[in-house]
């Protein structure tokens, strides 16, 4: 009987710790979204640099995937209270919520870069290489201000 109280306390603590580590679905979804961008950018970058054989269909699919991600509505994936000050497991700066119009403008730049990449993908590795700068610029522009350093 004496042992019961510590056991209950332990269990509660354990559950609490597990709860704190659970990553919210919105955070998982947006991280997956950025991962999708990186993977497809990797295919295009690999072709531009000659590490991957150029394949028009594969390049177009990658560019289309990036364009698709750029159309996802950010508001649903960035609910209040999911910044890096409030929770673990995210590098989303609190400034995202205070400068939301600027964030959305920068997100639109990703769409613009993706559209240019879609046009380039069909043409060949050189055009892809030239379009990567615009896409990468959109990534950097946001990460400059809105991603917590490692």
């Amino acid at each position, binding site marked *: 009987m004496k042992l019961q109280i510590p056991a209950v306390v332990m269990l509660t603590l354990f559950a609490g710790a597990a709860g704190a580590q659970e990553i919210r679905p919105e955070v998982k979804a947006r991280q997956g979204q950025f991962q999708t*961008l*990186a*993977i497809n*950018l*990797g295919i295009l*970058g690999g072709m531009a*640099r000659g590490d991957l054989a150029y394949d028009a269909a594969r390049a177009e699919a990658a560019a289309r995937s990036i364009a698709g991600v750029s159309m996802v509505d950010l508001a649903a994936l960035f609910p209040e209270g999911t910044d890096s000050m409030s929770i673990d497991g995210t590098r989303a700066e609190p400034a995202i919520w205070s400068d939301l119009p600027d964030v959305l403008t920068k997100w639109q730049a990703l769409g613009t870069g993706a559209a240019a990449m879609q046009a380039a993908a069909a043409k060949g590795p050189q055009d892809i290489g030239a379009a*990567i*700068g615009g896409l*990468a*610029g959109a*990534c*950097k*522009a946001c*990460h*400059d201000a809105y*991603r*917590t*350093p*490692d």
Partner: protein
Amino acid sequence: MRRTLRVGAAAALALGAALWWASAPEPAPPAIAYPAGDAARGARIFLAAGCGSCHATAGQEDRLRLGGGMAFATPFGTFHAPNISPGPEGIAGWDVADLDRAVRRGVAPDGRHYYPAFPYASYRAMTDGDLADLHAYLVTLPPDPAPDLAHDLAFPFSIRRGIGLWKRAFAHEGWVMAEAADPEVAAGRYLVEALAHCAECHTPRNAAGALDRSAWMAGAPNPTGRGRIPALTPETLGWSAADIAFYLETGLTPDYDSAGGHMVAVIENFARLPEADRRAVAAYLKALPVR
């Protein structure tokens, strides 16, 4: 007793005089016959040295209006980059020798020391020709009327004269990579160690805020207080030379993650430099000794 006091006072006076002498700003350098400056070449030096990244007002779209204002939070206090536009609030009236004394020696035209948040300890290795070109370029930029912000420093760091002692102890002559026989590595050494002053963030500092040259490019805490600046030594970075050059052009890592923080500004500069410069930086980093 009086004798002890007198000796003590004399010793204190002598020590004070020695410190005063040792902390004196270097006198103006002997007249150098600088080569004629070329503004077009100076644009490359301006980009490689990252002048605009700190001296263009933060958040301002135009990176060529050098009104200053970027704040550097450090353990010693907060430094503010000054106006270096060619207007009266900036460097109006400076000749190449004035720019030289500031950039390579950290001394203002009025003889005061600059704080080493201005990376003159790196710029020390700049060539006369590059200084002349940089001067020719800076005077073509638009003047900006922004007044300089005062640094916000704790005592005793607020005593500017003390920087003279810091310079004596820490502003080394000479390259960290002593041997660079390969011309591409040598070009990279000049870019990395002098112009781009990469080590100012990528190398840890000692208690006096000077770079620890024994841990060259070993990574360091982020001066913003959050996160770490990554190591660039070959064994830790693990990137190919082509990966490094591609990153400096696009900001994309080999995993196709993207650069963030102050490195974004560095890449915006490097993306506009010739490919040969990005390759030279890569060659230098790959040539760093494995520790």
